[in-house]
């Protein structure tokens, strides 16, 4: 037989302790949830956040300059645009002290950071290369980065032709558009051929409506008929293209007869 007194005296206390433990458990869960909510990965504000924005802004600036230069603008546009961007950032960065320095690459094939090469070997390039230094100091963080902005639009053209009737020729071209070495899409194409196949007297004739097949991976196939002065004339083709970034590239190629 168990003593009566001890049973009666402890049962209530055990219940209270159990309820206290339960309350503690609930409270600790609440604290855990509150802490987890606080630690939700939110992109860090201040210097770091502005930093990404300035990097993107600088890249967009170089891209705009390449679009301008490739469409006939002056090479000085690159430095002028970057200076404009720098001055706006300096005067409107409130949450962090931002310092931007840039140096356009002056090494072959770049000249003042710009590379325009619209060759006759079926390869055309419009690009720019700028070394950047970004330093952003905010109240919570300081960021420093040295990096390079490389904007390159390339056009590769291969061509073949077959003689049809007299000097009428069926021309097939394969064009590849690349942005920073990766396949990209074109906005438009304009195709020309040289009437007598000689560059001593340039008489480029625009192909009215070439048939263009877009493979969706940066490869385009074009076909059209061209009428040269004589059947023996070489088939010189010039392809003008603008990619989706409005950068103009041109490439000339001599088609092979098949």
């Amino acid at each position, binding site marked *: 037989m168990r003593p009566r007194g*001890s049973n009666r*005296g*402890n049962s209530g*206390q*055990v219940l*209270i*302790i159990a309820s*206290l*433990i339960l*309350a*503690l458990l609930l*409270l*600790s869960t*609440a*604290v855990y949830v*509150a*802490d987890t*909510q*606080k630690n939700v990965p*939110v*992109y*860090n*504000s201040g210097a770091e*956040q*502005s930093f*990404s*924005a*300035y990097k*993107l*802004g*600088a890249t*967009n*600036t170089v*891209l*705009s*300059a390449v*679009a*301008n230069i490739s*469409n006939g*603008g002056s090479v000085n*546009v690159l430095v002028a*645009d970057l200076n*404009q*961007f720098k001055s*706006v*950032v300096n005067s*409107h*960065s*409130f949450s962090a002290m931002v310092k931007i320095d840039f140096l356009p690459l002056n090494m072959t094939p770049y000249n003042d950071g710009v590379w325009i090469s619209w060759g006759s070997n079926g390869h055309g390039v419009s690009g720019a290369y700028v070394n950047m230094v970004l330093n952003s100091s905010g109240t919570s963080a300081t960021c420093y980065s040295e990096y390079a902005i490389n904007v390159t639009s390339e056009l590769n053209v291969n061509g073949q032709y077959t003689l049809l009737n007299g000097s009428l020729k069926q021309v097939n071209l394969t064009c590849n558009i690349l942005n920073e070495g990766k396949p990209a899409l074109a906005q438009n194409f304009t195709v020309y051929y040289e009437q007598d196949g000689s560059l001593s007297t340039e008489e480029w004739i625009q192909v009215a409506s070439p048939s263009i097949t877009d493979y969706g991976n940066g490869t385009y196939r074009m076909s059209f008929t061209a009428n040269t002065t004589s059947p023996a004339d070489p088939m010189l083709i010039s392809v003008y293209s603008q990619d989706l*970034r*409005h950068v103009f590239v041109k490439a000339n190629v001599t088609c092979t007869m098949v």
Partner: protein
Amino acid sequence: MRLLKDNKGQIRTIEAFFASILLLSALTLIPAVQEHSSDSSETLSSTAHNILLSLDSNGHLADLISNKSWVNLKSCIQSSLSPMVWFNLTVFNENMTPINDMPITSGSPVNDRIAAADYVCASTSSNYAVYIVRLQLAGVD
């Protein structure tokens, strides 16, 4: 031997100990709640910045501004935010003159605590321009 038999006092001590832990943990919750409310404006400001950054990632933001597509710009911001969040967007030129000729907002603010983010947006088109975009946000408490 007597100590082992007499459990009454020990249990009360344990009870008091648990009660004090309960009180202490309740006290720790109070600053956590206060911190949460002060963090909300920072979170809104960060959200505003992230929205503008993602819109600008492919030059879309600058294109919308250059083309004065204010309605499309409003739709873009609206679709990036919860319907419970109020927003107001203003586009300035380099001289801080507003250039959006229509309000880009979701109505009247739902809260007095408004968070804002200023974003420097450079265009990618050959006609270069730099804009300062200010996105103000306010959420329901």
